[in-house]
């Protein structure tokens, strides 16, 4: 598939091939009617479960038939009709069926089955008959291309989202991710405000009080003053430590210094369980992506430390085909769910802002593997010293 020429650069389809497509479409018309009937039967029988089994089996067949017509229509019209289905989750058949049911393309496929096996069938049949009837060859010579164009436009109308629909979907996604991002930033700001208010700010107040009291006690009670200054120094130390941890939460300094690779190495070193790190990044991703992926990996590693009971973990970072991909895995007990905590949800939202995704595979008994993916480009490599020997 990947070695095929882009549709636009291919030569237009000749009459022979057009007629071959028409023949195939004619032959498929009967199975398509059968498919439609089975859909109706399966739909009715869902009340006694057996219908669900029929539907589960029908989905891939219907989609394969539809995809075949997408390819033919794409060739005839000289444009690529992308696979429009929503990605199916890794879960059980019920989870997958749920996604199928809410996918509007499923229902368009169904309508298409009906139209393609009647009107579409008639168009394709006409092309085949014009050739088969010998005396009508000259009509076929001129009519084959427009007829198949018509058939393909009909298929495209049902099987592919129009430009407007695609844009509407894009706007929908952008609206949702933007709202999530705004929520996320607001929550982060509140957390920072609380951290500063309860931490450093409170300690600075205490510090100022200690120093004020020390100032008063200086002449009458030097011993007490000395003690107060000592207290003040301790409070200063804790205030600095507080600020350090707040800074780490905003933007870890090691991320600024060393980029994503170095920062992930630093995270791995601080883990209680041994973590194998494999990094293959020829450059640096944009700073916001770097930060989102860093906090994603940090969250995964923190979960490994807290819940998995793993003896080993691993992190892989690579950039391929315009996508930055981070894989975090462990050999722990598995059974992790992205809905269990707010942490993973936050990671997902943060990634969604860059059209990134998070996939979790965690069967009971392990292993747990989390994959973060973000489409992005890398900037030219920054010179960094070779990392320490492992």
């Amino acid at each position, binding site marked *: 598939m990947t070695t095929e020429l882009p549709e636009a650069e291919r030569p237009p389809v000749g009459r022979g091939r057009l007629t071959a497509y028409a023949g195939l479409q004619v032959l498929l018309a009967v199975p398509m009617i059968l498919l439609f009937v089975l859909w109706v039967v399966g739909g009715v029988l869902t009340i006694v479960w057996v219908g669900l089994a029929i539907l589960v089996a029908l989905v891939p067949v219907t989609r394969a038939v539809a995809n075949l017509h997408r390819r033919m229509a794409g060739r005839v019209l000289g444009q690529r009709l992308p696979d429009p289905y929503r990605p199916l989750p890794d879960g059980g058949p019920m989870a997958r069926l749920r996604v199928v049911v809410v996918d509007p393309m499923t229902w368009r496929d169904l309508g298409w089955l009906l139209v393609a096996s009647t009107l579409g069938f008639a168009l394709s049949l006409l092309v085949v008959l014009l050739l088969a009837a010998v005396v009508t060859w000259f009509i076929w010579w001129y009519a084959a291309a427009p007829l198949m164009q018509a058939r393909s436009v009909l298929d495209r109308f049902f099987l592919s989202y129009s430009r407007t629909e695609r844009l509407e979907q894009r706007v929908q996604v952008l609206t949702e991710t933007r709202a999530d991002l705004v929520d996320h930033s607001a929550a982060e700001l509140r957390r920072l405000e609380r951290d500063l208010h309860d931490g450093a700010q409170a300690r600075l107040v205490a510090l100022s009080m200690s120093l004020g009291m020390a100032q008063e006690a200086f002449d009458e009670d030097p011993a007490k003053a000395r003690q107060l200054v000592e207290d003040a120094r301790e409070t200063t130390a804790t205030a600095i430590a507080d600020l350090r941890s707040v800074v780490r939460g905003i933007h870890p300094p090691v991320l600024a210094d060393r980029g994503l690779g170095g920062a992930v190495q*630093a995270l791995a070193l*601080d883990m209680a369980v041994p973590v194998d790190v494999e990094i293959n990044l020829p450059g640096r991703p944009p700073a916001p992506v770097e930060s989102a992926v860093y906090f994603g990996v940090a969250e995964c590693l923190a979960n490994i430390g807290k819940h998995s009971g793993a003896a080993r973990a691993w992190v892989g970072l690579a950039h391929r085909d315009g996508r930055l991909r981070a894989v975090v895995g462990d050999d722990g007990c598995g059974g992790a769910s992205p809905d269990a905590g707010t942490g993973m949800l936050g990671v997902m939202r943060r990634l969604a802002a860059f059209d990134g995704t998070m996939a979790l595979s965690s069967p009971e008994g392990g292993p747990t593997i989390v994959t973060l993916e973000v489409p992005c480009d890398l900037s030219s490599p920054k010179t960094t010293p070779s990392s320490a020997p492992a």
Partner: protein
Amino acid sequence: MRLVLAEDNALLRAGLIQLLSDRGFTILHAVDNAPALDVALQDPEAEAAVLDVRLPPGQTDEGLRAAIAVREKRPGFPVMVLSQYVEHLYARELLASGVGAVGYLLKDRVADVAEFVDGVRRVAAGGTVLDPEVVATVMARRREEPLDRLTAREREVLALMAEGRSNAAIAARLSVTEKAVLKHINSIFTKLDLPVGEDDHRRVRAVLAWLRV
């Protein structure tokens, strides 16, 4: 002792200069950026350096890189690295740049003047001084061979050795006699299969083994 000092914050730089010169150090060069530091470190008169990790113009880890580079050119050149935050990763890189004569401390530790100056002296004498925060992250790790052969007490002693403390200081901290500390240390050396040699060198090697450099 003649020092090179690099710190971009003018207030802190002035403070460090005063603090170190009051205690018998000579500040040969005090610089506030990475290119000037590279020049200063070429001075053959310099005997040790106290460096901030983050320096202009890049404001990333220039000080650390300069420390590693100078130790490549002048093996065993004593360097004390100061930072607003500590990273286990950076500690490993520093320790990997040659045996001993390195320190890595949070800037806040300067507040405890006596201990800080003592740390600089220890580093200049070839010792290793690590910040308690680095030591704590290492302590939290799951133990592996051969370190899991150490008893809990021996690990405590090893952690304090990594912070660069003397036997007397370790004894005071753990409320035991110096003789008991000596016994623990000898036991650590044996368990880690460290070759017989100069005591200071074995101390450093024990710390390195512990950090798995």
